[in-house]
């Protein structure tokens, strides 16, 4: 996961930069208030509950909405004043259904590429290539109306990607997908961010889901910034060991606590703070398990501390799944 993807002719330092950004609807509903955040290249997870202001931030970045206060810059440009050049360099995958049912997917994506400014022959070529990249092969010659939800999501992603944007804005790309489809979609987003070298901002209300693929996270709640940091910085000092035994985990927890380790329960497993001296911690766990004559199912490093950092998010899904 390189934070500075290869293949960029221009080195972009900052993708999205907001300063005291505010958006009110009809002067009554406040969607964003005093949001100051800097989004750097990479795969950026934008997390928050439904209605936190994620979609509003995306639409402000595209220049589809005008801010009621503050400032936003995308790729160094003002999305309202320089809307055309911003939108030519950005790809957008909306949250909701947005595909015409009676068009053939290949035709539709070609058309969208042309509206983005690609010459006809190039548009056709890139459309079928992009559809192949998102996993639609022969199906691309069928009507979108007959597609499954998973295939429609792939077409939505393809139309956002077809003109080779510098920045991809994905609003809840896993919406409506089953677990297998979610994993496939997230793997795809990860490939786009790493192999393709396109920076991605991916919105989700499921932190546990997107933290796996992101290089940094921005959490907003009720239109305000909760926290923003790179993922490595967030998890650096908080390495945990996940210990799973078949039974008697209570006694193991007690024994480990007596040995001076910080132990926390997480469903059936125990999370043990790795501490300053990892080797000693490993030894202590090994000895404790042996002493209690338990069978050890799992002992691994656990990076899911991010969920703890976002404990403030009032959603059950924000914790590790």
């Amino acid at each position: 996961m390189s934070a500075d993807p290869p293949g960029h002719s221009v080195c972009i330092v900052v993708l999205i930069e907001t300063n005291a950004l505010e958006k009110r609807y009809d002067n009554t509903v406040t969607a964003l208030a005093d949001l100051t955040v800097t989004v750097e290249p990479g795969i950026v997870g934008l997390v928050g509950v439904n209605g936190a202001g994620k979609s509003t931030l995306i639409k402000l970045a595209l220049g589809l909405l005008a801010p009621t206060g503050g400032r936003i810059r995308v790729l160094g440009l003002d999305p309202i004043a320089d809307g055309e050049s911003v939108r030519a360099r950005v790809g957008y995958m909306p949250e909701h259904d947005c595909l015409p049912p009676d068009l053939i997917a290949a035709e539709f994506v070609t058309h969208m590429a042309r509206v983005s400014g690609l010459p006809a022959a190039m548009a056709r070529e890139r459309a079928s290539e992009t559809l192949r990249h998102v996993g639609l092969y022969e199906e691309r010659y069928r009507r979108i109306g007959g597609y499954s939800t998973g295939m429609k999501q792939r077409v939505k992603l393809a139309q956002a990607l077809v003109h080779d944007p510098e920045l991809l804005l994905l609003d809840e790309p896993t919406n409506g997908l089953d677990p297998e489809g979610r994993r496939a979609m997230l793997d795809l987003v990860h490939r786009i961010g790493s192999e393709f070298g396109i920076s991605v901002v991916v919105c989700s209300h499921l932190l546990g889901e997107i933290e796996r693929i992101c290089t940094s996270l921005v959490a907003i709640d009720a239109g305000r910034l909760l926290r923003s940091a790179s993922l490595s910085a967030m998890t650096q000092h908080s390495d945990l060991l996940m210990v799973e035994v078949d039974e008697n985990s209570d006694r193991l927890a007690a024994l480990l606590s007596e040995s001076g380790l910080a132990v926390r329960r997480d469903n059936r497993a125990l999370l043990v703070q790795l501490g300053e001296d990892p080797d000693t911690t490993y030894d202590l766990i090994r000895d404790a398990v042996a002493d209690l004559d338990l069978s050890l199912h799992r002992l691994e490093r656990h990076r899911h501390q991010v969920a703890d950092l976002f404990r403030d998010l009032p959603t059950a899904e924000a914790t590790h799944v």
Partner: protein
Amino acid sequence: MSDRNTGVIHDIGYQRYEGPRLGRGYARRSLLVHSVRGAYGLGRSAWAKVLPVGILAIACVAALVLVVVNTQLPVEVIDYVGIASTFTFAATAFVAVVAPELVSVDLRGNVLSLYLSRPLRRSDYALTKLAALATATFVMFTAPMLILFLGMAFSTDDGISGVLAEFGGLLLGMLAGAIHAIVLAAIALPFAALSGRRVFATGMIIGIFLVTTPITGALMALSSGPGAQLAGLINPVFLLNGIDAWLFSSVMADVGVYGPIYGLVAAALVAIGTACTVWRYRKVKA
């Protein structure tokens, strides 16, 4: 096994695009071409082709019949402007079917959010769709005229001068067709853009054309002189026939000295229809 395969597909991975990005004007042209094709159901399902292509086919068959009638009878029964006038009723049906096709699908399916996240502006979308409807309707008028022209040009007795005379008539007819197409499109599209439901939109447009027809008919029958000559202003079809009478001396309508008023009303309708369409798309959620 793979050694014997000559056609090996290499996954060369993702390719960056370094070529030109053609901007807003090109985006508008692309949308125009896409919409005109879509109006005739090209690139869409077979059912989408039935009505627009059917209406066009009927118009063309009618034109063939007219060629036969025109060439067999001693007097010419219809000219090119006459086609524009008589086919206006068919064109209203065409517009009522096609206008919702052009805008309702995008409204209902939220496709607009994909357009607006590209270099197109809201007004670009609205005006391009209007132009697309006018262009598709113009094709509706021109195809039977071309058939009539081919038929007449091949059967003329006056050699090249006869062909040139026919060609002059064709140009006048196309001008009339263009005026008809623009006025009909400007009336129909704002109504189509109101509803994401195609059926409602089609119903509304047909309603406007149908409800006003008996009113005009009654006024024409009941009054005489100026009253009858101005009654045509109420119904779009009679209005257009009135314009033909004013500009091209068509015999389809009697407008007396009020021709310019017909012209003004038509111009006002186009302006209002265009403004309403643009205004409507300011309000649509992206």
